[in-house]
């Protein structure tokens, strides 16, 4: 086993290295997110056949389902980064956790809005107090709580640590969101796409769904890189490397 991988990871934890790394990663991730998003949405909204029962209204899943997956995925990333931030006191982990929260909140909000837009014609109601819907709403409140707590402190690093603690407490909700359709008899349908075993969805609908999912993942990476870079500049504003970047920008 070569030793360059752990060494590279250790180096990546330092703000200037991560700043440069995120700077090179971010345009690629943005381009891939845009490309996959356009292809996936074209496939989903134009190429995929209409549902035999729901007609064209089902097409909202190409936004709804990837956003829902991302809301849980980002909470998971935030939880892991929070744990790393609290245990090893790595500044970059704090930045990643805190900058993930607004993106996750946005995806959770999109999930809830698209779900209720779909629910009106299909279920006849914008909202119902179903286990899946309620736990997703709780997820939104958890994201908002983390963001609110982070900004309530004068000292940003202290706020990040307190909010990271809250994020870890709230991670208990993620399995509840995921398994709510199995544990309770809900109006929300069960899972259709399975990683293990065959999916109960036609291939013509599955590939656009997975493509859009990949696009949202790349969007998250791109957005996180951009936010983390800005945050790092702000957080390290007294340091030499930031001053050098500022001088370069001023010289241009």
């Amino acid at each position, binding site marked *: 086993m070569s030793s360059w991988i752990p060494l590279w990871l250790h180096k990546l934890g330092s703000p200037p290295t991560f700043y440069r790394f995120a700077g090179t990663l971010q345009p690629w991730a943005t381009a891939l997110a845009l490309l996959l998003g356009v292809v996936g949405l074209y496939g989903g909204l134009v190429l995929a056949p209409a549902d035999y029962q729901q007609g064209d209204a089902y097409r909202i899943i190409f936004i709804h389902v990837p956003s829902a997956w991302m809301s849980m995925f980002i909470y998971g990333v935030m939880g892991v980064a929070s744990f790393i931030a609290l245990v090893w006191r790595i500044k970059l982990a704090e930045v990643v956790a805190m900058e993930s929260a607004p993106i996750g909140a946005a995806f959770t909000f999109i999930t809830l809005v698209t779900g209720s837009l779909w629910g009106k014609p299909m279920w006849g109601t914008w909202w119902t107090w179903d286990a899946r819907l309620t736990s997703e709403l709780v997820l939104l409140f*958890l994201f*908002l709580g983390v963001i*609110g*707590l982070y900004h309530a402190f004068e000292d940003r690093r202290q706020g990040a640590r*307190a909010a990271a*603690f809250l994020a870890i407490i709230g991670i208990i909700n993620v399995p509840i969101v995921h398994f709510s359709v199995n544990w309770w008899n809900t109006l929300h349908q069960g899972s259709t796409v399975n990683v293990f075993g065959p999916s109960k969805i036609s291939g013509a609908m599955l590939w656009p769904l997975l493509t859009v999912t990949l696009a949202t993942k790349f969007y998250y990476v791109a957005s996180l890189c951009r936010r983390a870079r800005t945050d790092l500049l702000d957080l390290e504003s007294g340091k030499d490397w930031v001053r050098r970047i500022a001088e370069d920008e001023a010289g241009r």
Partner: protein
Amino acid sequence: MNRPALTSACAAMLRRDLTLAWRRRGDIAMPVLYALIVTTLFPFALGPEDTLLQRIAGGVVLVTVLLAMLLALDAMFSSDIEDGSLEQLVLAPQPLALMLGMKILAHWLATALPLILIAPLMAAMLHLPGAVIPVLLLALALATPLLSLLGAVLVALTAGTRRSGMLLALMLLPLCVPAVIFAAGAVAAAQQGLPWLAPVAWLAAALVLAVVLAPLACAAALRIALDA
């Protein structure tokens, strides 16, 4: 640390907090008054129909008690932070989690117990059948310590901030949803003549878990918040 010293430290902590609470009796009366006023407003807003009030009585009492506790939660550590005694507690040789557990117990005795005592009155004002009131009290007796414990963790997290009232509500809301669901579920089941033991058992299980974990989490959160 030998055992007598630890128990006497716990007793001293409890006595101190209860004495402080007793010296400011007006603060104890506030949540009780608030709960009574909110309960009085419901019949005005919904109309004095017995059947409607009966159906919502359990839930209204639970939510009112929860909100009244939220009102008092903010003050759990604030005076101790202002006069610096909380820092002394952190530095004390006794385990911080245990001392905070005592503080939470004192806070529960001072705020939640009066609310539980007037809960039968609130339930009667909304015409909850007398047979259901013991179940309501049992559910409250299990749900309020759970809320105190969860709330204490969050209050400790916001200890270092200036404006925490709204934030506390935002953070406590998602965490207290299960407690409200199970407590209201028990009351609703009893009202319909169904077995109500399962939700109460869930509440008790959650409470046991919280009694063990919440003081530890509270101590960790307080260390983060005071570590300026």
